[in-house]
């Protein structure tokens, strides 16, 4: 069953079967950023370290880095964001995904927050 795990930097990763995982930014993150107007995605084939800079998201206000929740190789990017970056605001954990990462190291997921822990974390941010 697919479920989301979160980082303290407000990225999510969809944990499920197989070894390819979708990554994006949380609903809280898109709300903080405001209207997203540009997304710079990584190149397919790029190997990214856990916590490594993977993408850039620009709102009307400012540019922010997006970090990879786990280490792995980029195997797909969401081209729809080039034409419609507002998908990040509309469906942050759905159509607004950023890229897909391939990794065999599922032990990495254990360090990430599940939805309940993340919601509590965000609540604590005020």
């Amino acid at each position: 069953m697919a479920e989301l795990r979160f980082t303290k930097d407000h990225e999510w990763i969809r944990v499920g079967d197989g070894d390819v995982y979708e990554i994006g930014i949380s609903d809280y993150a898109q709300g903080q950023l405001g209207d997203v107007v540009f997304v710079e995605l990584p190149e397919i084939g790029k190997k990214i370290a856990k916590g490594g800079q993977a993408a850039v998201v620009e709102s009307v206000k400012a540019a922010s880095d997006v970090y990879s929740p786990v280490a792995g190789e980029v195997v797909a990017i969401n081209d729809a964001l080039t034409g419609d970056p507002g998908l990040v605001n509309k469906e942050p954990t759905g159509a607004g995904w950023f890229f897909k990462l391939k990794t065999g190291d599922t032990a990495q997921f254990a360090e990430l927050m599940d939805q309940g822990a993340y919601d509590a974390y965000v609540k604590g941010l005020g």
Partner: protein
Amino acid sequence: MSDDTPLKTTPLDALHRALGAKMVPFAGYAMPVQYPMGILNEHLHARAAAGLFDVSHMGQAILAGAEAAAALETMVPGDQLALKEGATRYTQLTNDEGGILDDLMATKRADGLYLVVNAACKDADFARIEAKIGARAPLRRLDDRALLALQGPQAAAVMARLAPDSVGQKFMTLREGTIGGIACLFTRSGYTGEDGYEISVPAAEAEKLAKLLLAEPEVKPIGLGARDSLRLEAGLCLYGHDIDTTTSPIEADLVWSISKRRRAEGGFPGAARVQRELAQGPARKRVGILPEGRAPAREGTEVVDAAGAKIGVVTSGGFGPTANGPICMGYVPAAFAAPGTPVGLVVRGKTLPAKIAGMPFVPHRYFRG
């Protein structure tokens, strides 16, 4: 200013919070950067209907007496003597090197000049004016007044409904009258490129006036975020970013704000530089820059030539919601200033193609009558 200095608030502070604004520190004030509608939609609303902005942090003052215009001319390149009663003009306070200390609006009134200056500069501006002009034209700060801007193509219809005295008012003129029964001063002006008004109102009446305007179906509150993208699309300078003490009015492409008489006569601080640059052309110029892709280039982005050598810098840059793409302004050498000239913008280590562009990015729609 140290970080523990408590932020000042405008008379609309409680209203902003009640409207759900996100408040941020700006020029020492707690100001609304956006409301729940969001910057993008606020921007589009101001271009389509009418937006209400709180600009009460800006400095208002009266420079009093018959000598006010002549006295202010010793500090600014703008033509104050030519102003007819009720006429508003844009000008700059300059330093002895011809740099810009602040930009401001001056309106001729029966009792002198009504000035509106930037929030971050107001204390320094007013101290400088008092030190230089003194008793010749006493400066009276209007700290007990708020300033609201109503901007957008439907602003005039809203004003016509609430302020009969506004009907027929021309761009860049001031009228005194009531809005919903509240005594105000309003100039037909603004900083969005749209038709609109800036309304000076006693602080005690400001919230009542704002609520009255917000009750009109066309009007929504707009924060500083959209104010910035609106003025950038309109090609208007933001002090401390696009103009400062190192940039002259000629470099900043503000020559239109200096009359023929003042160009010839000088008589303001830094006139020698301004006259030299008028005669020889400035070494660098403020220009519009249009990135060819979708990536915004922010303030501070390096501008490079075809060989990759740094030739200039972006002073304001971001996404233009109405332009529907990234837009910038910045300074480049005069040789690169012609619209259409290809340049590069270095964004996150990559050089992105861009072109010098004429401004405004979105046509002005001022009411010329």
